[in-house]
């Protein structure tokens, strides 16, 4: 027994431990800065947020220590039980949780409030890793694929029902894991395309291509060009069909050159979107002909992608205006810079950007941030904690945090890749992906790049649930990694 523990301590990845400690400490300093009250400067005051966070950190260390002691076999053995337990817990929470600002996700146990949704991520990662590493699992098997998606979507849907959309969206991060394990990149591509096309359709839906022809739509025009380029790239990568690529490219480019010539020198107010429709039409016809002649379904699917992109673009505009609720529309518009609504939805983002922007290179200094101390920034020790970093520690501080997280994620990927056990490898990717998603959305939100979605910054944001769940998520992997050599499969 002794020998084994010794072994583990030697094999633990000190890089990750170091990064974890650094981030947690920097996080606590930020919370101290954000919630510091000059009236009660007692360092150990546990009624203050920074005091409580110290308790959470202490508990986290204990949790981490316990996790490192535990035998790795319990994770592979109990993965399904843990998952089932958390699904039930999520449902129970949904039913019994009190209304906390519209959300039903907090379990109140006496003095402690916990958010099971945070811990359910770890359970889902374990379950997914177990299932995908099980003997005979293959993504080519329809039944396996369906179960794989269900493992991700079931907790996600329950969490959406709890009205914690932000937490639920974090499950999308697991698609990176699926991609790594062989899910076709097209799903990832389609996902990214859908997001980009949606944004373009909304953002430029009312912008004309040329000022003189006002009833045209730059959004659709851009979507058609992007869809054409992606389709041509796919044709090239999958079939090396130079003829098709060249034909359509030359046709497209020459048509627009002629179009520009006619418009500028012959002064005819032609509609450029019609030219785009002609090119796209030609592309679709060409693809269908190729599909029939060569009996390759791929051509048909690519033509479907092009047609689908145009349909999606048209529908996005409609869906945005008819299906989304006004406050959601405003949030998206503010994020896309279409509306400068500084009094309402834009207020938080604007104030957080003022806080970060006013930090300049070196920051205003510890406890000197007026934006955060005078409470202009909302949620400043939870979702907007990054503001305090920006205001008090400047560009140096924010870059350090971003690079710190990036190093951690890359390190986790490197660790995952060195696993002998498929279970550990998949789980490692889950951890990296989930941390990546949280960092990307949270930091993106406070610097005005992503919509305001309330999710915490790992290790930084105040709160026991968040800190503990990320600690558990990470240290299970570190424990798996430490005993990677014991596994020979």
């Amino acid at each position, binding site marked *: 027994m002794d020998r084994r523990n010794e072994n583990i301590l030697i094999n633990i990845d000190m890089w990750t431990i170091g990064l974890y400690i650094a981030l947690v400490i920097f996080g606590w300093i930020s919370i101290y800065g954000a919630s510091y*009250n*000059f*009236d009660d400067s007692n360092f150990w005051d546990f009624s203050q947020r920074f005091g409580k966070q110290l308790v959470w950190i202490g508990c986290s260390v204990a949790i981490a220590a316990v996790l490192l002691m535990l035998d790795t076999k319990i994770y592979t053995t109990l993965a399904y039980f843990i998952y089932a337990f958390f699904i039930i817990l999520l449902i129970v929470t949904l039913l019994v949780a009190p209304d906390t600002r519209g959300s039903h996700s907090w379990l109140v146990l006496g003095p402690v409030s916990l958010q099971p949704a945070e811990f359910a991520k770890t359970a889902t990662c374990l379950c997914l890793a177990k299932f995908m590493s099980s003997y005979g699992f293959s993504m080519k098997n329809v039944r396996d694929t369906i179960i794989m998606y269900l493992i991700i979507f079931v907790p996600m849907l329950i969490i959406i029902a709890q009205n914690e959309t932000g937490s639920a969206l974090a499950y999308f991060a697991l698609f*990176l894991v699926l*991609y*790594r*394990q*062989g899910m076709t*990149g097209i799903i990832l591509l389609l996902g990214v395309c859908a997001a980009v096309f949606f944004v373009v359709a909304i953002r430029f839906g009312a912008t004309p291509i040329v000022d003189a022809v006002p009833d045209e739509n730059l959004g659709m025009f851009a979507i058609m060009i992007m869809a054409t380029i992606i389709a041509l790239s796919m044709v090239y990568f999958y079939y090396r069909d130079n003829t098709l690529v060249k034909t359509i490219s030359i046709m497209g480019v020459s048509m627009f050159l002629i179009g520009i010539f006619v418009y500028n020198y012959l002064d005819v107010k032609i509609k450029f979107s019609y030219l785009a429709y002609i090119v796209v039409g030609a592309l679709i016809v060409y693809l269908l002909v190729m599909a029939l002649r060569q009996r390759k379904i791929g051509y048909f699917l690519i033509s479907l992608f092009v047609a689908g992109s145009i349909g999606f673009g048209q529908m996005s505009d409609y869906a945005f205006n008819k299906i989304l609720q006004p406050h959601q529309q405003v949030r998206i518009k503010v994020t896309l810079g279409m509306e400068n609504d500084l009094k309402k939805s834009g207020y938080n983002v604007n*104030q957080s*950007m*003022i*806080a*970060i*922007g*006013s*930090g*300049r*290179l070196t920051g*205003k200094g510890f*406890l*000197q*941030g*007026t*934006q955060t*101390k*005078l*409470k*202009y920034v909302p949620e400043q020790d939870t979702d907007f904690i990054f503001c305090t970093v*920006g*205001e008090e520690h*400047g*560009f140096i501080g*924010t*870059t350090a945090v*971003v*690079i710190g*997280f*990036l190093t951690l*994620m*890359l390190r986790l*990927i490197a660790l995952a*890749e060195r*696993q*002998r056990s*498929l279970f550990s*490898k998949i789980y490692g*990717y889950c951890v*990296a992906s989930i941390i*990546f998603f949280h960092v*990307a959305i949270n*930091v*993106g939100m406070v*610097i005005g*790049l992503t919509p305001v979605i309330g999710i915490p910054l790992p290790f930084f944001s105040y709160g026991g649930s968040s800190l503990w769940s990320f600690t558990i998520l990470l240290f299970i992997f570190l424990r798996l990694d430490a005993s990677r050599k014991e596994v020979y499969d």
Partner: protein
Amino acid sequence: MINDSNDNRRFIISLIMVAVCLIYIIRLFSIQIVDKSYLEQSQNNAYLRKVIYPSRGLLTDRNGKLIVFNKPAFDIMIVPREARGMDTLAFARMLGITKDDFDKRMGIIRRKSGYSPYVPQLFMSQLSAEEYGPISEKLFKFNGVYVQKRTLRDYNYHNAALALGSIGEVSKKQIEADDFYSQGDYAGQNGIELTYEKVLRGEKGEEILLRDSRGRVKGKYEDGKYDKLPVPGKDIELSLDIELQKYGEELMHGKIGSIAAIEPSTGEILALVSSPTYDPSMLVGRKRSANFAALSKDPLKPLFDRPMMAQYPPGSTFKTAQALVLQQEGIITPNTAYGCQHGFHAGALTVGCHGHESPLNLMHSIQHSCNAYYCCGFRALIDHKKYKTVSEAIDVWKNHIVSLGFGYRLGADVPNEKRGYIPNSGVYNKVYGENRWKGLTIISLSIGQGEVLATPLQIANLGATIANRGYYYTPHLVKNIQGGEIDSSFIECHHSTIDPKYYNVVVDGMELVMISGTGYYSRIDSIAVCGKTGTAENPHGKDHSIFMAFAPKDDPKIAISVVVENSGFGATWAAPIATLMIEKYLKGEIPKRRKPIEQRLLDANLIKE
């Protein structure tokens, strides 16, 4: 190692992570290093702009009597940092609130953006001097509690509530419409307080202080270079005679209606009574909203400004205007006489009249208020051959009437003035068909009934126009603005389209009304009053009693209209009230002979319970 055909994907995933982080670092670089505006904005947030409120302009009456002035009010401020350890229970008890209220208020204060425990926070607003008095002795016991002085309105006379208006907290709309206001400010909400808000309010002063991250004031920004002293509001001298106003309100007590009195030579409004009324001090301070709610629920509508907003058929008072138009158009001369057989008869149509000798000439037709005379005259006008169509005739008539101040807003400086209503040819063409009607169809217009509507102010203004023999000034409530000028529209003379020579016979007729006509009962021995009774038909109940008058006949000093709703014939109620007002204004007191009349009016209560 696991055999893996997707091995290159580890690099794609890493690349995605690196790309996102790189984009974020570039973005951070642009907002933290490149863009310098955020630092400035954060400094703006850290300023503490302390407003210094100006005192509001005072209101006096035409004789210099102070009507509206300012009284101090006290806002209780708390500096939470200094108030730590305060005996909150005792503090709450002193202010007459519970401990729960105290905690709730403090909770709301703490959640405000920009909150700092080092800066005074508004805890309770607008304590009156009476409320503040007993508290002030105990305040020293509580650390961190301060008092900010503000001003509220106070009244020497508890009259003219609607004309003066009141001040209240600004609405969201007002804040959006005018940069001057911020939340919690006070502004005129109606009456003179609203019309002359910009004159009365003055200019706010401002002290700009800098705060550090603890919210502590670090001193004046740029040594007070940008500080501003407040500029007090300008005082206004109103044209009202507050004693006359008060007397009018007493006479109208227990009656629904209005009095409008104008100085003909200037258009200055001497009294503007709306009855029932209320005490303007009811709408001051913290009891404002409760009282306002009670007043707006009152079925007698004390908040309805009757002299400006009520619209009645002017009844027989309108005959004077008809007499002027008929003469101007050459339909009648002072010698034209029409017969009257207890009214006007044309086929099945009869407009009744009371017993008097017949036929009457123009002057006596006014004296006896003969309906038949005006029916005949008006019919002759509308059906006259010199007009191509009846439409042309009525439009000519309408233009004359409008030049006498009817049909459109006069433009007085009291908000919410109504325009009344004078129909034109379009109205009748629409109802009866293009020119398919004649004088007889619209005969009720001749005696001021039917479609025509006028406000009491317009009727008083007709009196002023006749008193001036042909012109009027837009009625207004402001006589002088301290260090400023009144609106140029109030010194602009409006001439009617009627030649001044046609006025004399109307004036003589109105004098006869008082000497031996329908107004005899209300005559004043020592003053030559010209008057005209009227009755506005009321389809909903008893008719409204109307009286229009001016005095003295030569060199008129006052023109007046009185409306008493649901009180029947004009001579009974409206006329004596009008002449008492005239006598009070011109003589200052009521002689012995008329005391019983005065007493009867003061005692009368015509409002059915």
